[in-house]
C-alpha cells in the first residue's frame, strides 16, 4: 500500500474525532463546558504534547 495512504488511514481516527468535536461545539443546544474544564483541557494538551516532543527529541538525539 502506498505509504502516504497508510499514513492518512492511520490519522483518520484523530481527524474524525476533531471533526466530531467541531460539529458538537457548533450545536447551540450542547452543554457549555465550564471555564475550569476548558482550562484543564488546555493544560493537559500542553503537558501531553510537550512530553511527546521530549520523547521524540530524546529518541532522535544524534549525540546519544
Amino acid at each position, binding site marked *: 500500500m502506498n505509504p502516504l495512504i497508510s499514513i492518512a488511514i492511520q490519522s483518520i481516527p484523530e*481527524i474524525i474525532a476533531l471533526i466530531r468535536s467541531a460539529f458538537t461545539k457548533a450545536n447551540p443546544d450542547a452543554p457549555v463546558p465550564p471555564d475550569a474544564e476548558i482550562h484543564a483541557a488546555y493544560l493537559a494538551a500542553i503537558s501531553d*504534547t510537550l512530553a511527546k516532543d521530549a520523547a521524540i527529541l530524546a529518541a532522535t538525539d544524534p549525540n546519544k
Partner: protein
Amino acid sequence: MKTLLSLVLVGFVLAPACAKAPPNLTPQSVDEFNKTRVIKSIDILRDTAVIANGTVPPTISSASIRRVAQAHQSAVNVIVASATGWQATVALGLDELLTNLPANERATLAPYVALAKTLLNEVAR
C-alpha cells in the same frame, strides 16, 4: 484511496469553519479553547511525521521528524507564552519547517501544515 484521502482532508478543512468557542465564556477561556484547537492540529502534523517515519521504507527520515518535533515544541511554547500575535508566529514557523525539509518529505507534510494554517487563520479572526 485518493478520493478517500481527499474527502478526509476536505472534511478536516471544513471542520474548523464550524467550530466556535462555546458562548458565555470568559475571554481567557475563549483564548485557551482556541489555543487547544491549534495545539491539537499541530499535534496531528507531528504524529503524522512519526507514523511516516515508521513505514517501510520510512517516508520521513529520523532527522526530519526531529526537525518537526523541534518546530512543534517551539510552536507550543509560543502559543503558551503569547497573549496576542501567536497565530502569525506559529504560521511562520510552520512555513520555515517546510522550507527546511527535503522535497519529497515536504510534499508528505504540506497538507497537514496547510490544515493547521487554515485553523490558525480561523482563530485569528
